[in-house]
């Protein structure tokens, strides 16, 4: 079971706003998932190299060549707000 504080932190990092009930409910659910995965803790992996990738494949490269990019209109077409040149987002606060 995760504490409400832990759940709140994860929610904040994911930019999710959760009600008190949701915090409780999701804390419960996340706890169950973690318990389920905790079975893996029983395996002795002290002699096993950490795995970097599930596929046994290395060195997938492409040559340094340019391709045609999207036209600007298309690039901006999913933007919630745009002035036709830029993506527009609510003001970002840099200074305290």
């Amino acid at each position: 079971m995760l504490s409400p504080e832990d759940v709140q932190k994860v929610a904040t990092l994911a930019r999710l706003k959760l009600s008190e009930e949701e915090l409780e409910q999701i804390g419960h659910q996340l706890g169950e998932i973690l318990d389920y995965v905790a079975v893996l803790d029983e395996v002795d992996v002290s002699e096993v190299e950490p795995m970097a990738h599930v596929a046994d494949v290395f060195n997938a490269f492409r040559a340094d060549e340019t391709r045609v990019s999207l036209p600007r209109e298309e690039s901006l077409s999913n933007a919630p707000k745009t002035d036709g040149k830029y993506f527009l987002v609510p003001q970002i606060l840099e200074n305290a």
Partner: protein
Amino acid sequence: MEFTPIIGLEVHVQLLTKSKLFCGCPNLFNPDNPNVQTCPVCIGLPGSLPVMNQEALRLSQKTAMALNLNLANFTKWDRKQYYYPDLPKAYQISQFDLPFSYDGWVEVTLPSSGETTKVRLIRAHLEEDAGKNMHDESGRGGDSKVDLNRTGTPLLEIVSEPDIRSAEEARVFLEELRLLLRYIEVSDCNMQEGSMRCDANVNLHVHEDGEKIPTPIVEVKNLNSFRGVEAAIEHEIKRQIKAWETDRKRIGDVPKETRGWDADRGQTFGQRGKEDAADYRYFPDPDLVPVTTTDEQFDAIRATLCVFPADRRNSYVSDLGLSDYDASVIVDQGREYADYFDEVTSVCGDGKQAANWLTQDVQRELNDRKIEIAEFSILASVLGTVLQKIVKGEITIKSGRAVFTELLAQSDDGSDVTANSVDTIIADKGLGKVQDTGKIDIAIQAVIGNERNAKAVEDVRGGKQQAVGPLIGQVMRELKGADAGSVRQMIIDKLTS
């Protein structure tokens, strides 16, 4: 109060690839045309997959070699999660626990003391750059604009140990780093355009009653000029001394603070930290497979490296007999300048002569014309030919300058000047050194015998050597290429013995 400033730098440099790190969009600085260099991969549309640009990795590994870093035979990429408008995927592909290089150093020499120190490097890793946010400056809370042209371009992060002890050392470290990366042609390191960016971690070790007390670490972000780096650190040291004297806070008493630099006011200012910024929840990127590099492949990259600036300075001093100062002036102008110097030296056979001309005559012309050595109309082989004639004693330095001036005049008129032009100019202007003493003798006799010079001749006879000047001048005008020193000696000999 006794204290030592403790400074570590985090430097980001953009690599000179044609395309971005994981897609084929162009890697070009293009602020006037926002959002025209994007594709589904770099703006993170669902279903797109990144593929590593091999040249970006090669340039990174080359850089690591120049920075004395150890190279990893096995490396991988991880996702660093955070939300920010310039990061469309909401994660940055970066490197966490297995960077491609680690444990290196850069040697720097401080101009103020001449002292040479080694700044150790913790690591260099390869990641993708973010886009660019532009904030509404009106103060009315307008929208911020986001340009994603830069998103996903290859970025090298170089992290130093906190080995730097002064603002000057930080600046010199950065300058040496830029010079090195430009020599090996991996980045243009243009701080104004943001292809080199620097963050500084600064705190103090206060020495009190035999105890060394570290003060809280402050990260000064987004320093975008060499002058700015030096000034911001100087300011931050002073600010932290005051802070220690008023609140005596030690490291750990407060969370790490992030500050910005206001170049106009010359001070750092507090910034709102990203919430929970430290929790990036890295994990291996499942879209990218790990990369292995063999030692043979490293050797092949190593073979493409040029002589580094530091080695070049040393060899100019020990092999060519240049002063430390001249060696630095030449090397610090950049690789093309040093290559030009090398060619002039090899043609004329005298490094000191070449250095004199490069640091004076050539430099003056470049400054006056506001051009780089690559645009200079007198090729190294041509200047080398002029200097060779001086070295061999065929023309005087003064005649060499006349040839140089004429070469410039001819190329300004649109002609290509070559080594042959040098011979033609010397012949046409009669600048060849007059080595026939008989001819000089006759000219001297004529000048001494001229009634106009009777007074000067008397003066020299009477021991007033400065009176010899006008006589030398007349002889030289008669003969052009004669060596003034020997003419002077011959006149004095004739009149006083």
